[in-house]
């Protein structure tokens, strides 16, 4: 395994896939000359040329639509949106077009399109550059929704996304781009990571924590700190929410009797409620405590760190919630 940054892993996945398949091209704002706003496409313009690494105008609906058309016509486009918040501008092309074409055509056409974008808060980017809108996408049948938590995960899952014959909405976490992870296989040797198969991050007996994206990393730290207190956490990285690996969660909860879902999306009407209700019939009689969740408070993301950070679950709030669930009443 190699230690590289999350953004480098994304670049490697794109590079390796583009080298393998000439129908793949990358398009987006600033993906070419400067190699992407978050540097995920560095070197691709020089290596593959302007047509396969295309600097686009600031036209989100236009470039996603271009991707849809090119996908139907035999390419595998990877469209980059600079921030997940901007998918609102391309919503028709994602939800009415990409998501529905296989269905509306009765299976005549497929749309092998990847739309990549960074989500999440933590950068003082305020309400229009900090959202985590993955639940919106998951609510629209016909889209696959992916949220990698580490560099190795990002690389393996992006490869799968590119090879999938369906539109895949690929959410990267903007606070992870420059974080190094020691989980990346050697170049050209990493296998694609299949969708719909959760990752067991650590095994434990007292409580199951199911998390996504950067919340996996935060929950991992919380779990490590709780070990000293004698609390054993089983942590599951869901990887994809469409498809969702409910079996892994159910299996774990049957063992631990407790489930905390941690997701950076807004708590209300988000995926935590969906997951809890989906698994409830299978785990109801195995539960020792109500299923709980942690998410971002249901307010727009504020600018100041003094206001922003308290809204997003972190290592401390996750640890506190786990303690509360495992030892109600606060006894040590």
């Amino acid at each position: 395994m190699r230690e590289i940054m999350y953004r480098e892993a994304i670049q490697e996945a794109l590079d390796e896939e583009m080298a393998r398949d000439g129908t793949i091209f990358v398009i987006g704002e600033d993906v070419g000359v400067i190699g992407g706003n978050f540097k995920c496409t560095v070197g691709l313009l020089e290596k593959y040329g302007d047509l396969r690494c295309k600097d686009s105008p600031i036209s989100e609906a236009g470039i996603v639509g271009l991707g849809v058309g090119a996908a139907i016509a035999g390419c595998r486009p990877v469209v980059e949106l600079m921030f997940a918040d901007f998918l609102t501008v391309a919503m028709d092309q994602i939800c009415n077009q990409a998501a529905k074409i296989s269905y509306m055509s009765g299976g005549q056409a497929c749309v092998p399109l990847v739309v990549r974008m960074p989500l999440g808060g933590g950068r003082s980017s305020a309400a229009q550059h900090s959202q985590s809108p993955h639940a919106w996408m998951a609510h629209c049948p016909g889209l696959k929704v992916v949220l990698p938590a580490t560099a190795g995960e990002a690389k393996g899952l992006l490869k799968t996304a590119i090879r999938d014959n369906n539109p895949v909405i690929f959410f990267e976490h903007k606070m992870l781009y420059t974080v190094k992870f020691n989980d990346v296989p050697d170049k050209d040797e990493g296998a694609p990571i299949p969708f719909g198969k959760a990752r067991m991050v650590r095994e434990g007996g007292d409580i199951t924590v199911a998390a996504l994206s950067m919340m996996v990393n935060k929950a991992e730290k919380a779990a490590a700190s709780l070990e000293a207190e004698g609390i054993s956490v089983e942590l599951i990285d869901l990887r994809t929410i469409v498809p969702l690996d409910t079996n892994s969660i159910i299996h774990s909860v049957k063992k631990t009797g407790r489930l905390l879902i941690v997701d950076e999306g807004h708590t209300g009407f988000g995926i935590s409620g969906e997951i809890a209700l989906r698994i409830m019939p299978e785990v109801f009689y195995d539960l020792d405590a109500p299923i709980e969740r942690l998410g971002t408070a249901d307010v727009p993301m504020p600018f100041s760190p003094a206001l922003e950070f308290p809204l997003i679950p972190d290592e401390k709030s996750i640890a506190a919630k786990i303690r509360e669930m495992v030892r109600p009443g606060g006894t040590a």
Partner: protein
Amino acid sequence: MRLDENRDLAGKFYTVMYRTRRFEEEVFEFYKRGLMPGLAHLYLGQEAVAAGACGALKDSDYIASTHRGHGHLVASGADLKRMMAEILGKGTGYSKGKGGSMHIMALDKGILGANGIVGGGIPIAVGAAYASRLLQNESVTLSFFGDSAANEGVFHESLNMAAAWDLPVVFVIENNLYGISVDIRKVTKEPRLSKRAEGYGIPGSTIDGNDVFAVYKEVGLAVARAREGKGPSLVECLTYRHQGHHVGDPGVYRPESEVAEWKARDPLDRLEKAGLLTALKIKTIRDSVDEEIAAACSFAEKSAYADAAEAYTDVFAD
């Protein structure tokens, strides 16, 4: 063009236009008989645009269609039986009843899809053209849309990108003057929509969309230009829908005199009177098309609906 060539073309165009007209008349009949679920946006009156424009294409070319898209499919040679069955929601339809009138796709004929979202197909057309460039094939994409779609944001985004990159796509505006009930002149300062081409640095022209030869010639030039790698063009075809916005719209917002004036410029009548087709030729075409249409209607009506389980398939491709 030599006279005999013109006669051949006239026969071809008349066949397509009459086929479209008869198809749409039967769709309307099905609606009136309560056999068609939902609504349909009829192409009646605009037949020359599809016949002329699609007539300028090769089999390997693409078409992005619209909610008023039956004419584009008929003109591309789509299977009338599967089309009509789809419109009636039957399991034998192009999409097994999951698309309906507004979403018929015939990918085998290069139809990238009709589209229920006004303007939604324009960037998709640009994407197909981008694919042609990348995959180095010679396909050109025709992007059909109405006057109202020209006021959607993706119109601008799409024409801008296609022009910037000289993509092989031809934008065909079917300007029938109305977006449902709203007269384009009430919502747009400059109603000559082809003038917008100048802003993108591409050729723009406005032609008589009820003259099938004019459409064929102008779109043909634009297609040839696109195929040569010289980039997109914008062709505005002035036309008129004989019916309301859809089968349930009586179209009362349009002055009777205007409707009468445009019906007097009916594209089929004009071709019949152009002196290129004998009465016998016209009758032969009509008889043959009438048979095809009857067969399509009978097939669609007799076809079964798909099993309810069909609703759960094709959400994702394999």
